[in-house]
């Protein structure tokens, strides 16, 4: 096991990619805090599944876009587990609309959760990780943050911003033994992508050289790599896990 005794926090860990990341980290030996915004029952299920693997787990509610909630969540994690080694900034929402139709509130909500949330969580954990002189921060970006995507100006701006934030955090925190990397998933089968029409899905599939949609596990395995000692000489990087969709 690669993460024995480590403590991880996964934001948006109750469903989709975050859920799989939380489970995979636990399988590698980490104790995991599953953050969720609204899906309490699902978050508890993930925590129970982690406990059944023989690890410790807790489900903690908290809106990543709210600085006080984030500070409270990090404090609770450190109080309970004594340390914090791995932060996975995964929480994300979509509110798609064409640029011309996009409401200011749709823009703000997505930027607040998907970009500001990463800033707030990174800021809050960096204190603990600086004290420990070690830490791994892994941000979940998106293929569209690199390629652009019609109807997702807010989401794309946030996910692209995450890549820049990753690089800056990596440079600032490197002297204290903390690495910061990003993963940019392509089309992954989750609740978020189930909302798309069959027509859109068929069209997207044509753009994927490996000719299949990804599974949450495809992303979680790469996150485990970035959380482990195997990636200790990597920082500020974005790993593209998209079936070759964008190269």
């Amino acid at each position, binding site marked *: 096991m690669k993460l024995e005794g480590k403590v991880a926090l996964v934001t948006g860990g109750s469903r989709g990619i975050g859920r799989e990341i939380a489970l995979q980290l636990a399988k590698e030996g980490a104790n995991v805090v599953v953050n969720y915004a609204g899906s309490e029952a699902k978050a508890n299920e993930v925590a129970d599944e982690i406990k059944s693997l023989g690890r410790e787990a807790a489900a903690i509610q908290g809106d990543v876009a709210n600085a006080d909630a984030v500070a409270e969540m990090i404090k609770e994690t450190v109080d309970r587990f004594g340390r914090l080694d791995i932060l996975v900034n995964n929480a994300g929402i979509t509110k798609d609309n064409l640029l011309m139709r996009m409401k200011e509130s749709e823009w703000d909500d997505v930027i607040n959760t998907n970009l500001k949330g990463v800033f707030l969580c990174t800021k809050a954990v960096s*204190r603990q990780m*600086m*004290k420990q002189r070690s830490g791994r921060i892994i941000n979940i970006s998106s293929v569209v943050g690199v390629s652009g995507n019609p109807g997702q100006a807010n989401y794309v701006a946030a996910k692209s911003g995450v890549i820049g934030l990753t690089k800056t955090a990596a440079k*600032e925190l490197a*002297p*204290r033994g903390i690495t910061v990397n990003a993963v940019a998933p392509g089309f992954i089968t989750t609740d978020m992508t189930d909302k798309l029409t069959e027509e859109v899905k068929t069209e997207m599939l044509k753009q994927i050289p490996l000719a299949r949609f990804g599974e949450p596990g495809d992303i979680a395995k790469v996150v485990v790599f970035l959380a482990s000692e195997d990636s200790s000489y990597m920082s500020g990087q974005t790993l593209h896990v998209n079936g070759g969709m964008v190269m």
Partner: protein
Amino acid sequence: MADVLERVTKIIVDRLGVDESQVTLEASFKDDLGADSLDVVELVMELEDEFNMEISDDDAEKISTVGDAVNYINSQV
């Protein structure tokens, strides 16, 4: 006062690897004691732990000399 200065001095000496004689009230962390921005952030974190207090980001930004740190701590206890 003396006690606060003594404790602050010890943390600075440990953290920045400077000689105790360099740690005067007028000494600037960055200009005189060789600290970079991240060192100052860490010093503030250690002062918070040592004196069991929380120093807000706004207040922390005003601390640039040893005297600033000592005065701030004295004003809070």
